[in-house]
């Protein structure tokens, strides 16, 4: 009877039959490069740049800019994790970021709204885009990749129309101060991102809702037959992604202080790269919030380091593209290995299980907190 030592954590991914008493083995598996290669890579790359270009890399400006810039990417990626977990793509997020920024700027500057009500308007806009995506994907049964690609183009067209090709400027200073406000030397957007990550992690990992969303993405038919309302959950996932992307757009606006026709266009690639790279971390094979967050900052740090060591700007795009493809290929490869390897092992173990178990099943192991 396999029990898990840690009663709090979501089911840990242990290979084969894990015994709760095997705490050493568990910690070892938690720290194994298979699960947290990203953290090791982060440390290695950090050391590499720190030794190679200490004057540029180890400055506070570098790190506050990094934290600030990447906060928006991370927020959007967190939102995307919901749709990807539900087994659908949302390519419209970049356009939602741009449009949400434009909605705030337009309503405040051109329509004279209070900037805070304008922010609410932007989130409502994000929700509406989520509804539109769901309508096309769930109700009209259009493949999500195509549907959201189309919606993205439509949104960018609207963005161009509303901004008339110009930057909308003139936002109130107290709104723009959000990006500049620092706690312990780290700008506000980073904390906002952190707060959203914690909430998203809680929802995805700790509540039934998260499991239902994951089941929907894991095997839609099986989930539906198990009584999961897959259509409704797909709607919800799109709405969350849209709303979160809109919040990302608002945060972005506080930093760049103007909304233009091309705002948000460059988010798609890093966000997808991070989500897919994140899937190889912590809970391999499943999209997860902390994997995504780690991946965003890992990728950002490496590109920052490359830029600072004098590489041309094209390297960034190239790097993100390569990472996206490699992450997907790797997780595919890993999945195949996982399904082949344990079978042989378990077949061996299978012969042993008919024997009386070495530990009496009734005796709870020390780590087990069952009542």
């Amino acid at each position, binding site marked *: *009877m*396999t*029990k*898990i030592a840690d*009663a*709090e954590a*979501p*089911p*840990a*991914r*242990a*290979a*084969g*039959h*894990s015994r709760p008493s095997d705490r050493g083995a568990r910690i070892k598996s938690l720290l194994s490069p298979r699960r947290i290669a990203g953290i090791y890579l982060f440390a290695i790359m950090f050391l590499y740049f720190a030794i190679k270009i200490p004057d540029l890399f180890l400055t506070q400006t570098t790190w506050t800019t990094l934290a600030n810039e990447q906060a928006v990417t991370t927020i959007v990626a967190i939102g995307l994790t919901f749709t990807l977990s539900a087994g659908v793509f949302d390519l419209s997020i970049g356009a939602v970021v741009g449009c949400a920024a434009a909605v705030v700027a337009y309503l405040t500057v051109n329509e004279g709204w209070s900037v805070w009500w304008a922010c609410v308007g932007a989130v409502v806009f994000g929700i509406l885009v989520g509804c539109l995506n769901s309508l096309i994907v769930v109700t009209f049964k259009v493949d999500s990749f195509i549907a959201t690609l189309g919606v993205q183009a439509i949104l960018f067209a609207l963005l161009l129309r509303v901004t008339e090709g110009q930057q909308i400027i003139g936002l109130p200073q107290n709104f723009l101060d959000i990006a500049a406000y620092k706690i312990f030397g780290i700008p506000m957007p980073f904390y906002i991102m952190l707060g959203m990550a914690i909430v998203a992690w*809680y929802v995805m990992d*700790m*509540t*039934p*809702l998260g*499991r*239902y969303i*994951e*089941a929907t993405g*894991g*095997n839609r*038919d*099986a*989930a539906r*037959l*198990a*009584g*999961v309302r897959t259509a409704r959950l797909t709607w919800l996932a799109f709405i969350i992604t849209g709303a979160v992307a809109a919040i990302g757009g608002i945060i972005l606006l506080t930093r760049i202080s103007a909304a233009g026709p091309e705002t948000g266009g460059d988010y798609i690639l890093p966000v997808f790269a991070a989500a897919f790279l994140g899937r190889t971390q912590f809970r391999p*094979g*499943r999209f997860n919030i902390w994997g995504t967050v780690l991946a965003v900052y890992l990728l950002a740090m490496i590109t920052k380091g490359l830029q600072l060591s004098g590489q041309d700007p094209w390297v960034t795009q190239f790097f993100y593209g390569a990472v996206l493809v490699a992450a997907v290929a790797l997780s595919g490869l890993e999945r195949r290995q*996982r*399904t082949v390897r*344990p*079978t042989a092992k*378990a*077949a061996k173990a*299978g*012969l042993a*299980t*008919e024997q009386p*178990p070495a530990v009496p*099943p*009734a005796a709870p192991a020390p780590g087990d*907190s*069952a*009542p």
Partner: protein
Amino acid sequence: MTDARSQLHLSGVVKTFPGQVALADGNLDVAAGEIHALVGQNGSGKSTIIKLLAGYHQPDSVGEATMEGESFDLGSAHEADRLGMRFIHQNLGLVESMSALENCALSHGIPTGALWRIDWKTERARLTALLDRFGVDVDITAPVGTLPPAHRTMIAIIRALQDWEDSARLIVLDEPTATLPRGEVDRLFALMRRVASHGIGVLFVSHRLDEVFEVASRVTVFRDGRTVADRAVADLDHEELIRTMLGRSIESFETTAEVTDPVSALDLEDVAGLDLREISLNLGAGEIVGLAGLLGSGRDEVVPLISGARKRSAGHVGIAGRTVPNGDPRSALRAGIATVHVDRARNGAITSFSVGENVVLPNLRSLWSAGFLRASRRRRDAMRWINELDVRPARPEATFLNLSGGNQQKVVLGKCLRLEPKVLLLDEPTQGVDIGAKVALYTIVAARAADGLGVLVSSGDSEELARLCHRVLILARGRVVRELTGAELTAEQIDLAVLEEDREHTKHVRLTQHST
């Protein structure tokens, strides 16, 4: 056979499908706490009665249907659920990326604490207690997709029994062992016995008769839509069960004349891959050789390994003295090996293309002239094959998808024959093909063989093998274990040989297990 001990009782069930009587007189009695096997040939009606129970189909008429003395509406999924019937279909319906814990929680309802937080402690305790109760030892935290197939089946059973104390009364398993390696079957049986010992009826469909003798206490045999026997397993022996199942008198089959001293068309030397451990074969020009064997015997691998659809792990395939490269369908085709693959919708055709486009697809060169693909030539070429094989409708423009199964298969066969191959491989060539088209396909293949084409047929339909082939190889545990020719070559003999060899296999596995 109504008696007091009966938990589920069905009698006089009739179900017809357009043009076919699936069940003429179905009877079934399952007692509480009994392991009851349901056996019969394909098309005997055993899966129909399961689908009626599950509410997937509705019966035409029912004599009597009672569950624990209460009569119920056969054919209603809701009624079945209310009465505590639980069904485990072959594809289990688990979310593979999720753990057993999550899969079970998903359908049972996830327990939560404050702030909707999942209460894993409660859920784990619940599932662990359930597993303990049924003596199941599986990893409940690993994604079920990474677990061995038997564990997955057990998890599906446990999931179906989650609410057993409240309502589960009867659990129905549709060929639960079909995809399991032999060694794992015992563990599943142990679970079935424990479930039964809790007073829950276990009804399982199986085509492996050995399992019936091993685990079941009663067996119901279906044949041609009728219940022909409901017996205690202890009163039966293996041969009698097979006879009851097959039931037919030995018919005279159209045995084709034997090919004497043929020119070799295809050479297989120690070919191996996946379940197939070794096959060697010399297929003569003009000869039709059949392959028979149950799932897991390695039979399914033979054709893909030759055609290049799968990579051989060892061995040599030769045609006219030249070696056929491994794992490369294109060079196999070039060498003169054409294949009618299993599952034509997936492997055999591009279903959205027209019939004509499908026929000409493998060789477009002959249609190419002066820098254009000539539509008129394509039409002419396709028309020739449509006429030759009598495809209906006889229009090259018709979409492949809209054709009947038999006509689709004719198109696929035409596509292969157009390449003028030296060897034709047929993998389950008449799956989903009606009787009329079957005969047409046999006639075409036999005619081509008479012209010197070497044909290898892998089929689960023993009737087909007996009719079509000059000789049939029986595969079990990854090897050729017998060869049937001449007078031995009847459908009954093939069935007997397949089942017997499989039984030998089980004995063999048990012995090796005990010795370890």
